[in-house]
């Protein structure tokens, strides 16, 4: 039992029973800001020391050679056709892509976001079909509303075009190489033969109801009396982003926004494709301002080419 104080209850004023809250209310915690921490020197961070492998600066140095110098563009896959070379009579299969209202809608900066990237938007959308939050974001950037938006990582601040700049098809030169990224066609719930290329079982010779099945799912007691995690099985296939590297640009039409690349590109027709300079080829020797024009100056730029 706690020691009883010598004071009687009536010695204290009754106000202590209902303490009054001051007019200035206590500040509630609305956000949790990270406390600025000073980096510990346990792991050899310092001025004259080499940059540690597990650090952001080291990651940037590793990626330096791989990051493109300039932005990419969003294009719509229109379909495939072929180009005949009149001289050699060689037939080259190609994919026709079209840039539609590609514009720079934002920047990602290393000091604010931790990396350098250009946010490109393409297409358009009805204002009443876009939430006010999104509309406000576009209005704050001073750009029109875009249907599709994607980021293109660049090496440094020099690769960030002005906000609102229109990206046209002549960003890419005929003969240069590009990487194409798009969501592949969805195959739904695909069986093992389609998904993993299994060969199935015989069609006849007594085979009962097991022509395309998995067969065995692994060894028995010796392998743990279980199915190993990651065992290849039937399941959803496709509908994921795939990259096709080093596609040669065969034709460019700035007026109509057409870019024709060699070979195939993931995804169905009308799909959105991300195009950027190929990282496994030498960077194209063009100025950073090629293919990027200021908003409102497209008419002048087109007239100058005609």
């Amino acid at each position, binding site marked *: 039992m706690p020691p009883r104080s010598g004071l009687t209850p009536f010695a204290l004023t009754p106000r202590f029973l209902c303490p009054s809250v001051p007019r200035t209310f206590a500040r509630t915690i609305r956000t949790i800001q990270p406390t600025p921490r000073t980096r510990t020197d346990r792991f050899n961070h310092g001025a004259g020391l080499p940059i540690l492998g597990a650090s952001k600066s080291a990651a940037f140095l590793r990626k330096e050679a791989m990051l493109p110098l300039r932005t990419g563009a969003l294009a*719509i896959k*229109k*379909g*495939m*056709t*072929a*180009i*005949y*070379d*009149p*001289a*050699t*009579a060689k*037939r080259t299969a190609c994919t*026709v892509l*079209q*840039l*539609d*209202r590609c*514009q720079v809608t934002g920047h990602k900066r290393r000091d604010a976001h931790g990396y350098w990237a250009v946010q490109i938007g393409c297409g*358009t959308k009805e*204002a*009443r079909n876009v939430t*006010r939050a999104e*509309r*406000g974001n*576009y*209005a704050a950037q*001073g*750009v*029109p*509303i875009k249907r599709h938006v994607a980021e293109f990582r660049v090496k440094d601040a020099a690769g960030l075009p002005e906000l609102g700049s*229109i990206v046209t098809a002549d960003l890419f030169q005929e003969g240069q190489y590009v990487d194409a990224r798009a969501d592949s066609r969805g195959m739904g719930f695909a069986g093992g033969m389609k998904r993993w290329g299994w060969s199935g079982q015989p069609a006849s010779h007594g085979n009962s109801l097991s022509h395309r099945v998995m067969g065995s799912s692994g060894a028995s007691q010796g392998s743990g009396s279980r199915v190993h995690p990651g065992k290849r099985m039937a399941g959803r296939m496709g509908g994921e982003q795939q990259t096709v590297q080093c596609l040669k640009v065969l*034709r460019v*039409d700035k*007026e*109509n*926004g*057409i870019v*024709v690349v060699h070979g195939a590109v993931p995804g169905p027709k009308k799909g959105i494709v991300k195009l950027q300079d190929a990282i496994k080829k030498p960077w194209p020797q063009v100025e950073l301002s090629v293919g990027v024009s200021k*908003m409102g100056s*497209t*008419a002048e730029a087109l007239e100058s080419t005609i």
Partner: protein
Amino acid sequence: MSLSAPVRPLACIKQAIRQCRIELQQTRRYAVPATEAEYPSLQTRYPPPTPGFRPSQAIKQNRFETGLKKIPVVPPPRSTTKACPDPISILTNKQISVLDPTGARTRLFSPANPERVQPGDILVVRLRTGDPVSGTVLNIRQRHQPIDTAILLRNQLTRVGVEVWFKVYSPNVEGIEVVQRAVKRARRAKLYYMRQPRHDVGSVEGVVKQYLRQRSGGPLGSREANTGRKTGSKKGRK
């Protein structure tokens, strides 16, 4: 419980609160204009908009932005997809203008041309490199891209069946000539039944030789003699 009832002096706080609530309810009642009471057909489904933002009423009248700050919208730039909805046909036409400037090849395979190549005709294809190839047309493949129109020619070279595909617009193909039109229109688009010995036309070398001789101005006797000859095979019938 109306305002007209005499207000008792406040007996307790509870009564005062009750009176306040009633007054608030009465002030909140929506005022119905006199016209709607006279003309029932003009009665609106929902009361007219009241000043201030009332989400439920505004949404029913499709006014989602009433009372909210107007967000400026920048107009979009010129649309290339609207200006050029079919870029593939532009590319195709550009190529055809180079590969087939006279339009002869396009006419040969155009469905509007009554004298187009049809399955069953005998063709000779002159190549840029190599000997001319001749044969019966089994199939004229016209899929989604007109630039990839192709024909399948079947011939027998020393009793061996040979089938060759040719891309009609290929620069390798210098020219296509119709040696002989099908006697009777084939009732099929794809004459794969001709691979069977019963329906096989066989070697077309003789026909092609005569045609070439006639073209270069040779004797016409043998050609005329063969026109009335009945052919025993049932071409075109399955």
